[in-house]
């Protein structure tokens, strides 16, 4: 009964929201992504046995797979941390109604168990299991193995929410996760403790003695109950209040005066970034961004892939721009009405955002100069990408903002809203990265590396030269969407 009500509430919340169009578009895109991943996993599941047979002719593919389970757990934890969020539900109106707190929590946790992230591994696990049975493995063993794998997926599911909850509390964002998984991986890699063989031995023991399956089930139940405890505690309105009535440190940020008329907005933006959890996470993401090049550059295989230099250049110098910029002006949605009734110049308001984004690009390109260690071309590509970011992407993202109709509630301390960063956040970044890469690649491929660089720089410089004109027309666009934005930002959800 209860569950039926919850589902109908969520259905209405989705279809009656002001940003339905955008949400639908995103859902459709996510749908395509989901199909893509399902097909990929299916292919993996089918092909895994022959691949392993070929790669490790000496060993039993079944054993080899089990030694990989440990890495799957680590990788999946990291993926989920960034992409899977606990289903959000507005619970406040329900708290005083005749609905048991327990059933709200069970519903939310139960719903998370149906997550795509838990179903996806089955697309690989089941075909692989069937192949095993087909190859005359003991059917019972294989079935037990498949069940164990699914339980592990659920364990990862609930473990992830605990990690998210802890890191949301500590304000360290993803650092604890990276440290823990990094340490586990390191210990395993340098063979201090071989977790991969421990996990593998455990799974094989379970398949040999199906009764042992109660151990993972026990872990799963333990994690579920711990999540239950965490969430139930959060169902009290004052739960998030108790811990912190933060002492406010004020600073007058006098140095922003140099920016003239833009100064008040600059100060506001800086405070926005620093004093609210969600925008602050965009600052922490900078750390990932800056280090992103290290995933590629040290690898000799990528040394001559020049299009990668452009991609990483755009990403590394533009990560703040993309993360922060795509929520302009939604960051200010809470008090947008007030801004609109004040005597402000829209252009100054937008210019403040522009200055902020441009400054971030300049700082990032300077910080990433040490990448020159991997080659001069990389440095040059990064500078070209930075100029492109300043001259093109800043305007594109500001313009896109005038279509923004989704409110961001900075003040919300809603239970279960751990970070507000999900897969969706990256979708809008895709065109911002694909275009420059395409431009660079075409010239790079057709003419030379230098031509590609020049093409990017020219695009950027043209944008910078046209700054006044572009800002004026973007401002116009904002003014025409003023009423629509005010009314959309006035709605919750």
């Amino acid at each position, binding site marked *: 009964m209860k569950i039926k009500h919850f589902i109908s509430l969520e259905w209405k919340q989705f279809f009656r929201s002001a940003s339905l169009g955008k949400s639908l578009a995103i859902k459709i895109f996510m749908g395509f992504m989901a199909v893509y991943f399902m097909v990929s996993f299916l292919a993996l599941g089918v092909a895994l046995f022959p691949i392993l047979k070929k790669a490790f002719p000496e060993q039993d593919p079944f054993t080899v797979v089990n030694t990989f389970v440990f890495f799957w757990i680590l990788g999946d934890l990291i993926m989920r941390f960034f992409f899977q969020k606990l289903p959000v539900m507005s619970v406040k109106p329900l708290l005083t109604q005749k609905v048991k707190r327990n059933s709200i929590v069970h519903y939310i946790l139960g719903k998370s168990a149906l997550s795509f992230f838990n179903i996806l591994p089955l697309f690989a696990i089941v075909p692989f299991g069937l192949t095993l049975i087909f190859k005359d493995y003991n059917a019972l063993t294989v079935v037990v193995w498949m069940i164990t794998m699914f339980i592990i997926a659920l364990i990862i599911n609930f473990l992830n929410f605990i990690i998210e909850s802890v890191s949301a509390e500590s304000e360290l964002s993803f650092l604890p996760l990276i440290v823990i998984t990094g340490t586990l991986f390191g210990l395993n890699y340098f063979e201090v403790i071989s977790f991969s063989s421990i996990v593998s031995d455990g799974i094989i023991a379970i398949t040999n003695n199906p009764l042992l399956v109660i151990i993972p089930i026990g872990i799963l139940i333990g994690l579920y109950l711990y999540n239950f405890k965490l969430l139930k505690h959060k169902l009290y309105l004052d739960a998030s209040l108790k811990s912190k009535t933060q002492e406010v440190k004020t600073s007058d940020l006098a140095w922003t005066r140099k920016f003239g008329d833009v100064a008040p907005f600059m100060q506001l933006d800086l405070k926005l970034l620093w004093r609210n959890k969600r925008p602050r996470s965009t600052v922490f993401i900078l750390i990932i961004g800056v280090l992103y090049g290290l995933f590629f550059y040290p690898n000799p295989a990528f040394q001559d892939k020049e299009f990668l230099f452009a991609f990483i250049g755009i990403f590394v110098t533009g990560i703040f721009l993309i993360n922060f910029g795509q929520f302009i002006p939604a960051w200010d949605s809470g*008090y947008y009405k007030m801004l609109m009734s004040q005597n402000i110049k829209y252009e100054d308001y937008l210019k403040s955002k522009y200055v902020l984004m441009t400054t971030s690009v300049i700082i990032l390109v300077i910080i990433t100069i040490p990448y020159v260690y991997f080659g001069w071309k990389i440095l040059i590509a990064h500078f070209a990408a930075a100029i492109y970011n300043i001259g093109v992407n800043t305007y594109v993202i500001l313009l896109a903002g005038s279509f923004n109709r989704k409110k961001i509630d900075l003040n919300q301390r809603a239970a279960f809203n751990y970070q507000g960063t999900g897969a969706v956040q990256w979708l809008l970044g895709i065109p911002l990265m694909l275009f420059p890469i395409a431009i660079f690649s075409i010239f790079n491929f057709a003419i030379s590396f230098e031509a590609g660089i020049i093409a990017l720089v020219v695009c950027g410089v043209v944008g910078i030269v046209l700054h006044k004109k572009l800002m004026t027309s973007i401002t116009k666009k904002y003014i025409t969407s003023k009423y629509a934005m005010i009314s959309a930002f006035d709605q919750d959800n």
Partner: protein
Amino acid sequence: MIISNDLSKTYGSNTVLKINNLDIPKGQSFGLVGNNGAGKTTYFSLLLDLIQPTTGYITNNNIRVHESEDWKPFTSAFIDESFLIGYLTAEEYFYFIGELRGQNKADVDALVAQFADFFHGEILNQKKYLRDLSKGNQKKAGIVAALIGNPEVIILDEPFANLDPTTQIRLKGIIKDLAEKQGVTVLISSHDLLHVTDVCERIVVLEKGEIVKDLITSEATLKELEAHFAASETL
């Protein structure tokens, strides 16, 4: 000062506001009363150009509000908490508004200092963000912010709601002072008939978007209003 001409706002087939002619002279303290859905907030939103009129226009000091923005320098408002910036302290918020309205810190400090009584020691130097203040204290901060920069027109939607009795009385003093001594045009809306009749020289009753009464406040006004709303209850 503020003239509404043939003004209406329609959503679909539902007309929520229809005012043929309303002229509010300079320096008047003007009260708007009416039941929920009578169109009070709609009128104020139109006045601030937050929504567009379906027909007609409002002029504020001879400036049509939905065509030019030149009314903004001398007009200020506090409609609801969405006028506050939650992650600022009260002082920072006042300075920010001050800056938008061309006032330096000293100006703002001098103005805010006059309201020490009104704040009752709960707003300034609290080292708290506005979002962490209670509803009533948020309202106090918002109302005072609307007084920054010597506005000639001040619009307050439901200023008495959520305030404690002491503060309500002090607020009445502030509003009277603005209109009588400083010649500011003050527009307020309220559900509290006693407060509006205390404060406003003129009271307009809205019902389903239309003006049904336009009274100059006198001894008899409160009785008349009470009679009116008691009667419409039985309708």
